[in-house]
């Protein structure tokens, strides 16, 4: 499980551009919880995700994963337990390398990379099986270079890569934002399936209210570096997109009144 306690992060400290991106944000996810984070631009959603992944070190606050404070670990060490799918399909895969070589790197994320040929028949068979589940025909393209795949296909591979070595935490960073609606729907289905299947603890950032309502056990709304609203599956069950937008506005009004 993941516990984020009082996390603060200031960008450009000590300059006129200083901005408090995370203002003591706290969030706790039960094991297997699929949490969706929404919020307007600059609310701190992506900063929170980056902080948990280890993209930068945060100021005060702690990040606890399975009872272990990982807040001071470098990114590549956290990657043993944390998998991530980026917004840009190009970021999550390595160009110039084949689909299977990309998958191999993901399979070795939690373990040691040894001086031996990693592309075994057993591994290939296993990957083919996993890719076939997506229904995109990717199981026949193991030897193709990853850049010959479309953006949506690359993102689907990135998703398979992320769950290949059973991470303790899965981070999804607006991973459908750069895709066309049809492909996004496919990746959405795949996301729901893999997360559901492995009961992965998941933190997903999205701008899509519909996705936020349909997916996940929990919905969190962030604003100005804090969690402003947290809904359980039961609480959000009756809500429509309009209701959610209304909650957004209310929050804005409150901010206006307070200032």
């Amino acid at each position, binding site marked *: 499980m993941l516990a984020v306690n009082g996390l603060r992060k200031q960008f450009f400290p000590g300059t006129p551009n200083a901005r408090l991106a995370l203002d003591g944000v706290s969030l706790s996810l039960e094991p297997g919880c699929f949490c969706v984070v929404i919020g307007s631009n600059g609310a701190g959603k992506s900063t929170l995700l980056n902080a948990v992944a280890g993209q930068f070190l945060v100021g005060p606050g702690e990040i606890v994963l399975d009872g272990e404070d990982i807040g001071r670990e470098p990114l*590549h060490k956290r*990657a043993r337990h944390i998998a991530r799918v*980026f917004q840009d399909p190009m*970021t*999550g*895969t*390595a160009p110039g390398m084949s689909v299977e070589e990309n998958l*191999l790197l993901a399979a070795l994320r939690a373990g040691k990379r*040894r001086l*031996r040929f990693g592309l075994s028949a057993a591994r290939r068979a296993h990957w083919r099986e996993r890719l076939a589940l997506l229904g995109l025909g990717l199981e026949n393209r193991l030897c193709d270079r990853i850049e010959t795949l479309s953006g949506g296909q690359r993102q689907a591979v990135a998703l398979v890569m992320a769950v290949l070595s059973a991470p303790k935490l899965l981070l999804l960073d607006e991973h459908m934002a750069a895709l066309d609606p049809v492909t996004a729907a496919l990746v959405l289905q795949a996301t729901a399936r893999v997360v559901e299947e492995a009961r992965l603890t998941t933190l997903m950032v999205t701008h899509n209210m519909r996705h936020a309502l349909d997916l996940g056990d929990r919905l969190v709304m962030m604003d100005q570096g804090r969690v402003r609203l947290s809904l359980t599956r039961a609480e959000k069950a009756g809500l429509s997109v309009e209701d959610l937008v209304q909650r957004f506005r209310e929050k804005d009004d409150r901010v206006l009144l307070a200032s």
Partner: protein
Amino acid sequence: MDIVRSFIELIPVTLAQSLIYAFVALAVMIPFRLLNFPDLSCEGTFPLGGCVCGALLAMGYQPLTAMAAGVASGFIAGSAVAMIALRFRISSLLAGIIVITMLYSVNLRVMGRSNIALFTYPTIFDLMHPGLNESLPGKIALLGAVVALVLGLLFAFMRTEKGIALRAVGANLDMAQAQGISVWWTTVAGVGLAASFSAFAGTVLVQSQGFSDVNIGFGVVINGLASLIIGELLVGRQTVARQLLAPVVGAIAYYQVISVCLALGLVPSDLKFASGLLVLAMLAAPMLFGKERVMAREKVS
């Protein structure tokens, strides 16, 4: 006809020379292409390998010991370049220049003077077969075999789990880190490996020519770059095998071109200018012809 004859006579000598310098081209290629860490420090690690090897030979050490020490010193120097660039966030090229400059003093310290004659000491060639150093065909066969062996080993390595991780760091830094790969250690080891090839070339050269000199590195980096570019033009770089083959094929081709220039009567001291011009032309070509042509075509259509 004299020109043709003198060129043909030069072919074996040039071939032996290019098989040594192929390792320098390899040392340029690995950081530049596989790690995306442009590093030109072979200008310093090449003479470092030669000087360490020469000094140890002159002290009475066995050729293999002297060569191992030379290669190890190259590894350390290459790793130092990577560490400086990564730790202090300095451009890799600048880090390389700093190390090259410092190595010049190191080389003079190691040898105690600017050059050492090695004719009287046993070399690796003598160790393999007495008189091998005087036999060009023998030398070419031996060097060719070593080049082939190293290429084979490198190709196998690039397909291992460690090798694929190394290529991932060069292909996509963010992805590599997100897959748990330490960019620091991979780059330090990779650049160190490349530099040890460059130092290895230095150890072979000093034994082949019979003397060690602090100035043997002057201009090797531009030769290595030119070799790499020509090689990539000839064999391409679409696959790992081609990318590994390119510097070797390029080095062989490049030194033959140089040989033609010499046969045509070009003064050796003008060669550096010619090499620089060649590299510049190759680097400018896509800008001058590629994109311009594409844009022109787009305008037409």
